[in-house]
């Protein structure tokens, strides 16, 4: 059992490669930054969707809150990036704790609706308080101080990319510990059979609240990173397509194994850049077709070819 907690060679290779990329391939540094942020967002969704089975169509709510609070903090209080990151995470975590009360009961449809509703409410609120958020124009002019007082967020994007990758790695390691722990196993139990989970003494409601809050906080970190590295926050962060996109990213990479978020983000961004350059509308069509085919063929079978031989799923 404990062999699964050791890091495998390809994981070390992946992370070393990821950190080297912005420096070896400078003109792609901005893209790498985007991928890192999207990956973190997807990993946060994996915690609640992949591991706990909570279908959420409004995870962008926490992403947006993290972004706006970090941006506002940098603009009006203090431009230090790490403080801003903590503020963004804290605000999203609080919102997550509050909203976790809404996902405890009800069917999948109910959960879909309340998660969607929360994101839409935040969109409306952000629109209403446009004095603070900039409304449809967005919040502009967010200037971030140099990281650790030395590494400025330059135009080339290498420092931001490394910053995002660093945060991603840190949170990924923590998430990895979490899902491989007894706590993580109880999440899987809740996903697979909530009735039985209760019948073996797992305090289901409490676990749901904790994991939802944690996932919200991590999503908030991703949002904060986006606001800080792009210097900008806009209303579309709360929109439905953000929540749908991150779900798609996770599904592409595979739910329930954390790396699904990372690899999905990589594939998604690469594909999007490639296909969108042909025609913007085509992207929506092909994504739609991909989803339909993916589900008809079977999610696990398509995206994890190595499981075809050994069968089963890793926890």
């Amino acid at each position, binding site marked *: *059992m404990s062999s699964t907690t050791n890091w495998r060679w390809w994981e070390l290779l992946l992370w070393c490669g990821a950190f080297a990329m912005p420096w070896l391939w400078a003109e792609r540094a901005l893209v790498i930054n985007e991928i890192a942020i999207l990956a973190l967002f997807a990993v946060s969704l994996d915690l609640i969707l992949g591991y706990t089975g909570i279908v959420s169509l409004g995870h962008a709510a926490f992403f947006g809150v993290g972004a706006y609070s970090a941006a506002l903090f940098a603009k009006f209080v203090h431009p230090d990036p790490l403080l801003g990151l903590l503020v963004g995470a804290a605000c999203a975590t609080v919102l997550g704790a509050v909203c976790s009360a809404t996902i405890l009961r009800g069917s999948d449809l109910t959960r879909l609706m309340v998660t969607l509703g929360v994101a839409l409410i935040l969109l409306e609120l952000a629109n209403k308080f446009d004095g603070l958020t900039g409304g449809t124009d967005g919040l502009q002019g967010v200037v971030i101080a140099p990281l650790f007082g030395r590494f400025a967020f330059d135009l080339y994007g290498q420092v931001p990319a490394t910053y995002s990758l660093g945060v991603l790695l840190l949170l990924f390691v923590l998430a990895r510990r979490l899902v491989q722990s007894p706590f993580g*196993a*109880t999440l*899987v139990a809740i996903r*697979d059979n909530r009735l039985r989970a209760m*019948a073996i*003494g797992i305090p289901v409601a409490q676990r749901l609240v904790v994991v939802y809050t944690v996932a919200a906080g991590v999503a908030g970190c991703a949002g904060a990173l986006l606001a800080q590295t792009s210097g900008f926050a806009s209303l579309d962060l709360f929109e439905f397509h953000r929540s749908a996109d991150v779900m798609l990213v996770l599904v592409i990479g595979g739910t329930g194994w954390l790396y699904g978020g990372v690899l999905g983000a990589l594939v998604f961004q690469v594909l999007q850049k490639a296909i969108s350059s042909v025609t913007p509308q085509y992207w929506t069509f092909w994504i739609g077709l991909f989803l339909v085919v993916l589900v008809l063929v079977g999610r696990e079978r398509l995206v994890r070819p190595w499981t075809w031989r050994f*069968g089963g799923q890793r926890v």
Partner: protein
Amino acid sequence: MNDAVLSAHALVKRFGGITATSNVTLHLARGARHALIGPNGAGKTTLINLLTGVLQPTEGSIRLQGQDISRLAPHLRVRRGLVRTFQINQLFDSLSPQQTLTLVLSQHLGLGARWWQALGADAEVQRRCDALLQQFHLQEVRAMPTRVLAYGKRRLLEIAIALACEPRVLLLDEPVAGVPAGEREELLQTVAALPADVSILLIEHDMDLVFSFATRMTVLVNGAVLTEGDPQSIADDPRVKAVYLGEEVAHG
């Protein structure tokens, strides 16, 4: 009865116009080997659901070791030693038997909230898990996901999960249903071999098994208690025979 470890008083459960459980009073003594029998649809599983907190009673109360648990959440009843198995297997399909039992044991030993330690790292958990896998003949399949296991193995796992929780009161809902005849004896022997102070309430249709196992029986018909007593007087009771005669004709 004062030494009853689990008791239900005048339990009633209504669903809209239907009364599934009608004024049921049941006492389970310490170390009991108590069987609950009755025709299909008599409300036996509903009663178990009421006792474990899956359903809330419309009226009546439930006491565990003298304390009123009528409003206590299901998972807290488990923590106090009230454990059940399910008539239809309720398992964690994506986990293997080893992972399942490790999880159950971790939760039972209070490690369920630990997020920084790997699952199965605790030595005591590992030891108990190995013991259970051995006891229930699940070693060959210990690492395979539950969804690919044969029915018999799944049933064994179902019981193993309950025993991993070290129950003080064990509610078994048709434990040998669907298990091949040769393995039934073994399964019930494992149950019978539980410590003498564990109280067991058994729902079962196989009368031979019931009579060889139980020292006390309650007969439930249409949600109400028909009669209660030791096996011999139940077997001789003409009302019980009348209730079951229809059953036996139907089964052929």
